[in-house]
């Protein structure tokens, strides 16, 4: 052992009483002990031992620099963005958000988690700066007319054939991502929508998008808008409000909903072709198939790596776990979608670490995992760190999330016709489209997924306002009993933390774990606490 390692070991031993995992093990505290009550503000950051604390500190600096670069790239417009848009103010919660996502992470899982998180931070900060620098509300910019606002649930890879245009998923910055960071932002927008008579029982995500629309809080960019039919009545309604507010020529890309039938694919393929023709007409540009093939190759490599990751997920030795997997896959698939090289490079580095960890038979979370769970159904956006809490409190490792099973078919990179067909299939299996409204077979596929990934437990997110999924509740309960899975329905209201709070969600799990399974928590301080005023 090297001298430095000996020294670090000695310091770690000396300071171990400050490590919340050690405190929980010895009954003298835990991960929640360092917080001010209710607020989610920590008195001090987590002590993870010398190496991991220092690594966490360097990543904090790294993310700070990305944010500094964002402001430096367009200082006046970024500041005007903070002043104009309520949702921009919520991005200030990013550091606290990252801290709570990776509580209890150590070693390889911490390294991979930060690599994935930084990929998101550097991408998102660039995107925010780009949008604000070209927002017509602030006088526009050189790229304003080259941007194409599009619905965020339409995978933007097919737009790569327009190499001089920049597709911008319109709702991602002001509505979706920001709800992950600040649980209190969407209730404001939901109230705006409801004050105009929108019923309170629709999907809160659609209500929040409508609220952003009515509050005139979307950046103004582009010359034409691509909307979509995603994926329920409330969503179609909010698309209509958005089209009116955006007030640009628009094309609804209405992909097939029930797409397992072979007849659906030619229809969806034609929809994509129509969208391309619309953009060619509105922007006066020609589609470049070679440009598409270049980006499709990136997406194919990312999906190839993703499939290899799945093989590791099936074992106890996967260093990529929980929210570090879920959030990254969601962002890199739905928002980046093969368009940024950084993500391919990051995937290569992550898979190399995963291979190494597997060879070393490294078990994440010091091997404290007791259950392997598959997380199904759309998760509560306001409780992004739920997978972290459930591992730290009850030792339940969420091996894979439903959203991570999105389009993983390869795209042809030589024949335009075949590429379009592949892209149609790829897009049909997009976020929520495939599972929530894609037909019963896709919902019921859960059990096969759970078996394939060696899970003994299934957590089923129950978005209380999702009409599409309300009918399956009892059916899933019955099947879980028949198949012998430990099964927990976790009610939530997607983006409205007032209906079902984070605390309510935790209570549902804790009741099941203590009463049904008779287990003791790993960390007593995490069983019940109030974080109602936390971001």
């Amino acid at each position: 052992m090297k001298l430095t390692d000996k020294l670090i070991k000695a310091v770690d031993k000396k300071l171990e009483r400050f490590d919340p995992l050690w405190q929980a093990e010895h009954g003298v505290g835990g991960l929640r002990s360092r917080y001010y009550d209710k607020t989610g503000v920590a008195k001090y950051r987590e002590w993870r031992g010398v190496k991991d604390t220092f690594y966490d500190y360097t990543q904090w600096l790294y993310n700070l620099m990305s944010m500094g670069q964002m402001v430096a790239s367009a200082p006046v417009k970024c500041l005007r963005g903070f002043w104009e848009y309520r949702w921009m103010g919520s991005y200030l919660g990013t550091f606290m958000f990252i801290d709570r996502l990776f509580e209890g992470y150590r070693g390889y899982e911490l390294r991979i988690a930060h690599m994935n998180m930084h990929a998101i931070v550097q991408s998102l900060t660039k995107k925010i700066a780009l949008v604000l620098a070209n927002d017509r509300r602030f006088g526009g910019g050189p790229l304003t007319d080259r941007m194409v606002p599009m619905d965020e649930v339409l995978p933007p890879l097919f737009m790569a054939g327009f190499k001089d245009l920049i597709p911008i998923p319109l709702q991602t910055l002001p509505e979706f991502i920001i709800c992950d960071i600040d649980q209190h932002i969407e209730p404001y927008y939901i109230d705006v929508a409801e004050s105009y008579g929108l019923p309170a029982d629709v999907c809160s995500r659609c209500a929040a998008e409508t609220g952003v629309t009515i509050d005139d809080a979307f950046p103004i960019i582009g010359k034409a808008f691509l909307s979509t039919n995603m994926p329920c009545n409330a969503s179609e309604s909010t698309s209509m409000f958005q089209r009116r507010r955006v007030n640009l020529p628009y094309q609804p890309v209405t992909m097939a909903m029930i797409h397992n039938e072979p007849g659906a694919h030619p229809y969806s393929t034609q929809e994509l072709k129509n969208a391309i023709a619309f953009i060619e007409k509105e922007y006066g540009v020609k589609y470049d198939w070679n440009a598409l093939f270049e980006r499709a190759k990136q997406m194919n490599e990312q999906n190839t790596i993703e499939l290899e990751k799945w093989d590791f997920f099936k074992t106890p030795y996967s260093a990529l776990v929980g929210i570090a997997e879920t959030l990254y896959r969601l962002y890199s698939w739905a928002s980046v979608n093969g368009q940024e090289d950084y993500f391919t490079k990051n995937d290569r580095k992550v898979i190399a670490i995963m291979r190494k960890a597997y060879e070393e038979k490294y078990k994440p979370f010091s091997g404290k995992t007791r259950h392997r769970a598959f997380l199904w159904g759309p998760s509560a956006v306001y409780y992004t760190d739920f997978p972290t809490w459930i591992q730290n409190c009850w030792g339940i490792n969420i091996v894979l999330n439903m959203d991570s099973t999105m389009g993983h078919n390869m795209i042809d990179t030589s024949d335009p016709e075949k590429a379009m067909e592949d892209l149609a299939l790829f897009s049909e299996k997009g976020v929520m489209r495939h599972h929530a409204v894609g037909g019963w077979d896709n919902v019921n596929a859960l059990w096969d997924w759970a078996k394939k990934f060696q899970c003994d437990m299934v957590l089923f997110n129950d978005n209380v306002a999702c009409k599409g999924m309300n009918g399956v509740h009892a059916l899933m309960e019955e099947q879980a009993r028949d198949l012998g899975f430990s099964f927990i329905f976790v009610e939530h209201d997607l983006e409205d933390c007032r209906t079902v709070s984070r605390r309510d969600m935790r209570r549902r799990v804790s009741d099941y774990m203590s009463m049904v399974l008779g287990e003791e928590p790993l960390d007593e301080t995490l069983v019940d606490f109030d974080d109602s005023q936390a971001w």
Partner: protein
Amino acid sequence: MKKNRCIACRALGWAARALGWAILAGVGLFAVTFTVYMFNLENKLIYRYIYPFLQKHYNSQKRDRRI
């Protein structure tokens, strides 16, 4: 020759001093940023002062809510 050596000595002296200052600045920067990091100072500042200030501003905005 002697003059040249003196110039070389002086240059070395400057370089040593510059290096010293750089190390000192690095250590100082580390001390400040690590203190901010460890005691969660940036989040305390944002949560207690900046965020409430911005909320007050947002609540006073007049938005164009025509539909």
